[in-house]
């Protein structure tokens, strides 16, 4: 059984990791009360930044950093527009996606057709040779482990630390947080930058490890799935992790089903993840009181200091 199951599971992990990064980043952003619809744009800029730096320097480490910085830089534009200039968050987020797709195509013009060797696997001797479990749990690249660490530390940070409390407070009632004496927009900007860096890492994983080459528009809607995952996870990082693996799984099953020659139109299967997103969103919003209780009360609302 191991001869096809293990590779299948491994591909699920690689397909899910970009979603984990992007979704966990967005959880933090939305917890602070900001709705950033530009995940797709931040991911793709992260992807090209990482790929360009990786190909040019040959260093995987630099490439990963470049991905995070690229995502954060685009997020900064969004943060400046919505937090400092009080632009509408929905409009600014959509614009960010469109901008990111176009800008990355421009940056990536000279990189089409080039390849990157991929991220080195961190194989731990002996235990990574244990059949089945070994290759599944050990022997991944640094970003896969990083995504798990990010989920755990974000969950801890949001729920157990003062910083997390501040983020939740700002997202819950920005007027109160301001009158107590916290700088609402600084906290939000930090979260937006974090979210951007995470989306950038998600993008970097795509262009460095998942398919180590540059294709225009290669995020192909993953940013939107990550966005849906945040609601699906009712703004909890660990649930976003589970959700990401669920969606990653659906994507891969779709591919494998095609490989096994299942008599279903491939178009239908490639539609599945998006269909699942819609179904999940409908199911979640059915119980409106529950969704409201979990949602940050100030989500999407600009904070105007003089008010």
């Amino acid at each position, binding site marked *: 059984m191991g001869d096809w199951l293990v590779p299948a599971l491994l591909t699920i992990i690689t397909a899910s990791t970009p979603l984990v990064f992007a979704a966990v980043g967005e959880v933090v952003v939305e917890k602070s009360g900001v709705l950033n619809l530009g995940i797709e744009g931040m991911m793709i800029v992260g992807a090209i930044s990482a790929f360009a730096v990786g190909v040019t320097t040959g260093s995987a480490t630099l490439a990963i950093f470049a991905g995070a910085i690229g995502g954060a830089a685009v997020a900064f534009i969004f943060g400046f527009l919505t937090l400092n200039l009080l632009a509408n968050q929905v409009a600014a987020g959509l614009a960010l996606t469109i901008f990111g797709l176009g800008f990355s195509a421009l940056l990536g013009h000279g990189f089409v057709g080039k390849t990157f060797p991929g991220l080195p696997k961190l194989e731990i001797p002996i235990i990574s040779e244990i059949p089945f479990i070994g290759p599944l749990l050990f022997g991944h690249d640094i970003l896969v482990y990083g995504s798990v660490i990010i989920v755990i530390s974000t969950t801890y940070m949001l729920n157990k630390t003062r910083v997390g*409390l*501040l983020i*939740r*407070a700002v997202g*819950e009632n920005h007027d*109160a*947080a301001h*009158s107590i*004496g916290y700088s609402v927009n600084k906290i939000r900007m930090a979260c937006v930058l974090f979210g951007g860096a995470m989306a950038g890492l998600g993008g970097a994983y795509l262009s460095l490890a998942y398919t180590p080459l540059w294709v225009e528009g290669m995020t192909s809607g993953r940013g939107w799935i990550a966005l849906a995952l945040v609601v699906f996870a009712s703004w909890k990082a660990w649930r976003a992790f589970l959700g990401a693996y669920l969606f990653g799984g659906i994507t891969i099953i779709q591919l494998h089903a095609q490989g096994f020659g299942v008599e279903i139109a491939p178009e239908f299967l490639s539609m599945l993840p998006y269909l699942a997103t819609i179904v999940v969103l409908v199911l979640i919003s059915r119980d409106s009181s529950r969704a409201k209780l979990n949602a940050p009360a100030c989500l999407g609302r600009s904070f105007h200091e003089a008010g």
Partner: protein
Amino acid sequence: MTGQIPRLELEGISKAYPGVVANENVSLKIMPGEIHALLGENGAGKSTLVKFIYGVQTADSGSFKWEGQEFAVANPSMARKLGIGMVFQHFSLFDALSVEENIAIGISPELAGDNLGRQIRDVSRQYGLPLDPDRFVHTLSVGERQRIEVVRCLLQNPKLLIMDEPTSVLTPQEVAELFKTLRRLSEEGVSILYISHKLQEIKDLCHVATIMRMGRVVDSCIPSEESPLSMAEMMMGANLVSPEKPEKSVHGGPHLVVKNLSLQSDHQHGVDLKNINLEVCKGEVVGIAGIAGNGQIEVMEILTGEVLVEDPNSVLIGEICVGCEGPKFRRNAGLGFVPEERLGHGAVPEMSLWENAFLSGFQTMCLVSRGFIDVQESIKYALSIVSKFNVKTPGIKHAANSLSGGNLQKFIFGREILQNPEVIVALQPTWGVDAGSAAFIRQSLMDLAAKGAAVLVISQDLQELFEVSDRIAVIYEGTVSSPRPAEDITVEEIGLLMAGISSEVELGLTADA
């Protein structure tokens, strides 16, 4: 207290916003252990001054001396370090967080250690402010929420406690409890800056009062030596004409009737209404007292038709069953209404006054001809509201949100009253309205009743209800008590009903009978 160093001394504080001078050369001195009242109408500059003391805002000029030393308080955490604590009027609480988290966020990180929960229990027991640190704020009553704010301040061992309109949301009994705590703090040497426009409370509690008007300190007094009326006159700078109940010319049968009405609220933290029965007769004013969040908004929505009920017979205007009809139908049936929120509910903030007048009056005032807006008539209508109701505005083409609260509320009342409603329902009619406008609004409600309309006033302000109402009922957790003549019910009884203690009142009733 002479010879002592004042705890806080402000001198020559000025602050201007674009177009408004909020504070002009304000000076204030607070001694240790003193309960100092800051008195003034809305917009007199009290909040601006307090925001400056607490470091939320900076002043344009002036000096701030704390225990004799000059300071510049740049932000609230610095104010807290000095020993200034503040209880906000609109609580600075977070519904989705627990009591403990809410407190942790408002105090310095060093204090918010692991044993915060125990500290909260200790302090709350010590001062008689029971609180459970693990409860979530949205499950708490308003009185309990205020306790969170007070405990949050007390944990930091404050030397100066600022309280901004602390009693506006409390029952008379809760107020008494709060005053006990405040007096005890004062005995321990804590100074208290008490902001309110409830004059009787200030007379009972405060040692000294500073009176502000139009951004300036205009007077100061020893409240215990003054009468509420004399303080009100200092506050307004004019003689206050209190509303008079006009002679009743008509007194007809029930005109607004609610029968056996129950409804589940679909608001997130809403209140379900349970078996409400209410009759308002022609020519009378019925008041409903109660602490906010006990179903007032839900009752209002059912009366205006924003929320429909299943049984059309459960709401009647005159003979017409309107339970299943929307606001438009009800207006035609003779209903006028003034919701709680002026901006956004009572009026469209960005639209001009005449447009707002049109929106509610277009049917009854015939402001539409052949499907088009009759601009001439609408403007005439708006102008007549402005002149008859004394609305101070640069013009009726200005947006509703350019008016002060009192003036906009007068405009909204005028709009409804000029449509000659047979029934009018008002929720918190004078909330956040200056004393002059409030008196005017109360008077016009009573005049309307004298002309034969049925008037229902839902309010938290007991003084107001006693002033205008013929009969008073109390709403508590979605049930409305049966109204009793205003002459026969006392503030204490209402207070108990507002706190949900009805048995004692009933006992008292039978004893009276």
